[in-house]
């Protein structure tokens, strides 16, 4: 099953890296924009329908996202992206981005909402515009929570299984080309455990190695986010 067995787990890690980066490129800007829009600009009515939409997005089963990527997004993207294959990291990553967007948006919004009104007033009193107040003061004050939300989004992207298994394929290849089939760590685990794997074989053991690596990555991300929040959180009385 390994086309390049000598690369070992790095084939899988590169695939996870690729889909996660694509996902973050979608989810961080959109998620932050949604959070800023919801907390600073949206009227009560707009908030009233936009927030539920985000929550619905969070509640969509990832298998639905996965088939959507495979059956809707990839065919459309193929019109624009030459050389895009049926299974590819690009559409998997894009849709993965929408799957983690609600996490980033809602946790960032909480962080922005928690910024004391007195700080905003302090900026306005200096003649700051709304945009200057948001970019220079509000986002800076909410930074620790915003970064924590992004790290949580990364952890979700790394651990997400259905979307990447369905849309990115199960073909371990060492590449950062988003147009070709790849197998992420999670997709590999699905593939291996889906067939009958004899106990004690290399494949069987590799399942644990990949699982352990996934666990470690998530653990490190969580420790980092914990440290970051502690280090950069501002204490307001």
């Amino acid at each position, binding site marked *: 099953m390994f086309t390049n067995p000598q690369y070992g787990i790095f084939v899988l890690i590169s695939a996870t890296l690729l889909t996660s980066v694509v996902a973050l490129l979608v989810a961080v800007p959109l998620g932050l924009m949604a959070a800023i829009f919801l907390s600073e600009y949206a009227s009560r009515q707009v908030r009233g329908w936009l927030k539920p939409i985000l929550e619905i997005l969070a509640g969509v089963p990832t298998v639905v996202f996965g088939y959507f990527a495979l059956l809707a997004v990839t065919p459309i993207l193929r019109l624009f992206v030459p050389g895009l294959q049926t299974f590819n990291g690009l559409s998997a990553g894009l849709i993965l981005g929408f799957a983690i967007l609600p996490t980033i948006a809602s946790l960032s919004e909480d962080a922005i909402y928690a910024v004391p009104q007195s700080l905003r007033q302090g900026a306005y009193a200096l003649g700051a*515009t709304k945009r200057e107040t948001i970019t220079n003061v509000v986002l800076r004050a909410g930074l620790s929570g915003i970064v924590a939300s992004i790290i949580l989004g990364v952890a979700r992207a790394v651990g997400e299984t259905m979307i990447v298994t369905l849309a990115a394929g199960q073909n371990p290849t060492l590449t950062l080309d988003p147009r070709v089939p790849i197998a992420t760590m999670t997709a590999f685990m699905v593939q291996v455990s889906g067939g009958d794997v004899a106990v004690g074989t290399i494949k069987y053991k590799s399942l644990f190695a990949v699982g352990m690596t996934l666990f470690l990555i998530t653990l490190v991300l969580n420790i980092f986010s914990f440290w970051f929040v502690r280090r950069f959180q501002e204490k307001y009385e």
Partner: protein
Amino acid sequence: MQTNSPAVGTGTAFYVDNTDYYYGSFQAVRDVTLDIPERKITAFIGPSGCGKSTVLRCFNRLNDLIPSAHIKGRITYRGVDIYDKGVDPIDLRRNIGMVFQKPNPFPKSIYENIAFGARINGYKGDMDELVERSLRAAAIWDEVKDKLKESGLSISGGQQQRLCIARAIAIEPQVLLMDEPCSALDPISTRSVEELMQELKERYTIIIVTHNMQQATRVSDMTAFFNAEPTEKGGKQGYLVEYAPTQTIFNSPQMEATQDYVSGRFG
């Protein structure tokens, strides 16, 4: 903003003409008419809830941030109606600085706390020099000169408040509004802020809200006494009782309510 009165440093900064202040349909303060002299310290005193902050926050239109807040009547600054359609509140606030009740330094370094306002106001000069000058003017330079890179939140409350004063004067406003600037400070910090105000009044018009009457007598030239009375609807409504030189308010006020309040005989 356009200022059509060349008489800077003399005469009147603000004319407040027959103003009423509302939050939605609730009339929080009524009938305020007074004029604020340039380069003097004017104190607003009165029991809490009588509308001192509400009135103060209209001088730099900070109440625009509260959607329900609005005002009837006229406030002019150097002859310009500050609620006129042609007046941009952003420009107004660049000329009318404010210091708040609770110190609210930005979660940035001490240096950046000063530089931020200057930068957004298009300051092109030497930033290091401006930071030092502003911190010196706010009498806090010696205490923070070795930790300019540290967070503005890492210093004591009294230092934070002086940092906020430094931040306000860094953009060289003409007026400084201070809403109970010492209420969160210990007596020593309070003293240093009061001394600072005496220095600043040579260059700035200062309006200070305080509910500490000793503070009003110590620092101010003019005093406005506000009071509140119950309305039929059940809420309280603030109004201006008396406005006169501080000496007069505390020694020979015209109104009995003022006399009762300044002598401490007050409910």
